[in-house]
């Protein structure tokens, strides 16, 4: 066995997986689980300068969480926003892929807003299951639901890219996983009808739109139908949160990616008895929290995604 194989990740494999060579993203697969390697602020800045559109993804802030895995989730969100403010080239906007709060309390939404607004960027939200704990989804919809349909789905365009924010955490059925539901699926089909196949599409939702690990409910049971409507499009990027770790998969025209949380890490699929906040040594915590930067370049099929931890 060569040294490379002992590492679990051979240099050759890394090179094989560099699908975005030249745009700064490095990712690799070990044990069947993709990991992002490219974490460089300089690369992010260089990308932003040379491209049409760079936006940020932030996820799973869990404002209100104060358990041992991170007694100060507000503080780490503040750190993430401070880093976003310090990026040399201002991103166009930010998307938040849900679990803004831990318990959907007004005070938690207030605190989140106070911190996230410091970035001085437009933020496009979708809810996580922690944001719609109140039965009628009243608080989330009052704050973020203006102009959205159903429990809060919508679409918008930026620099020729079509963005679709989806809700797969509402009206979940016992024994299932995340779910979009018939009404939302019909809306997606309709929303895409008039778009040309050359329009780059970005889908974002809280729970992964591919089946990461059904034993922990890490997937969306009717996502195949949504992805079916996207088959004719040349460039599709799916951005999710929920699992509090970076994971990436490319399948044909579709790139799937999950972002880190700013609050607490969760175990890799199947490595613990269940999902949930994972306590790590204090000095490791910030290496497992962070945000993502996404850059679209004219003429390139895939968007470049760079995950940046709070530290390391």
């Amino acid at each position, binding site marked *: 066995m060569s040294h490379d194989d002992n590492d679990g990740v051979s240099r050759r494999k890394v090179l094989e997986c560099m699908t975005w060579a030249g745009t700064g993203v490095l990712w690799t697969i070990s044990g069947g689980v993709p990991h992002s390697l490219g974490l460089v602020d300089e690369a992010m800045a260089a990308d932003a300068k040379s491209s049409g559109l760079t936006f940020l993804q932030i996820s799973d802030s869990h404002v209100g969480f104060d358990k041992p*895995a991170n007694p100060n989730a507000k503080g780490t969100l503040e750190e993430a926003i401070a880093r976003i403010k310090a990026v040399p080239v201002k991103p166009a906007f930010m998307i938040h892929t849900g679990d803004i709060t831990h*318990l959907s309390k007004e005070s938690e939404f207030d605190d989140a807003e106070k911190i996230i607004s410091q970035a001085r960027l437009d933020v496009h939200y979708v809810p996580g299951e922690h944001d719609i*704990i109140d039965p009628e989804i009243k608080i989330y919809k009052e704050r973020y639901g203006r102009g959205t349909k159903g429990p809060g789905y919508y679409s918008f365009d930026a620099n020729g890219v079509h963005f679709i924010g989806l809700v797969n955490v509402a009206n*979940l059925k*016992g024994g299932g996983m995340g779910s979009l539901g018939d009404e939302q699926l019909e809306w997606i089909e309709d929303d895409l009808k008039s778009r040309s196949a050359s329009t780059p599409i970005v889908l974002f939702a809280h729970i992964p739109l591919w089946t990461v690990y*059904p034993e*922990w409910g890490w997937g969306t049971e009717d996502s195949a139908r949504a992805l079916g409507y996207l088959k004719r499009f040349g460039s599709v990027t799916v951005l999710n949160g929920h699992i509090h770790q970076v994971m990436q998969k490319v399948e044909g025209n579709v790139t799937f990616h999950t972002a880190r949380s700013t609050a607490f890490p969760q175990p890799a699929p199947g490595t613990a008895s269940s*999902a949930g906040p994972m306590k790590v040594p204090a000095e490791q915590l910030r290496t497992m929290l962070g945000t993502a930067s996404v850059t679209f370049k004219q003429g390139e099929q895939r968007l470049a995604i760079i995950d940046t931890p709070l530290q390391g």
Partner: protein
Amino acid sequence: MNFARHFALGAIAVLMTVAIGSTSARADDVEVKIDNFTFNPQQITVKAGAKVTWTNNDDIPHTVTSKTGIFKSKALDTEDKFSFTFTTPGSYSYFCALHPHMTGSIVVEAGK
């Protein structure tokens, strides 16, 4: 009759009563723990009239939501409890509305 055997059986009965009684006010009341995204015990049989109390021991909120809508807790934060008294015999499936892969059931048998 063997006195020692009688005594042993009596002691076991007392121990059993203590074991059940220590977690609930009445012997036919039942506790279900929520640990590591699992209802524990996942399936339990009770007599009609029994009160079932769920306690969330996770650092993540969960709900106890009947599949047919008969009972529905609010989101239970860490250490929060929810109780429901089952009066009608039958099988009651439930799940966590936040993490629907978490499921459990209560089977209610007719009382004596």
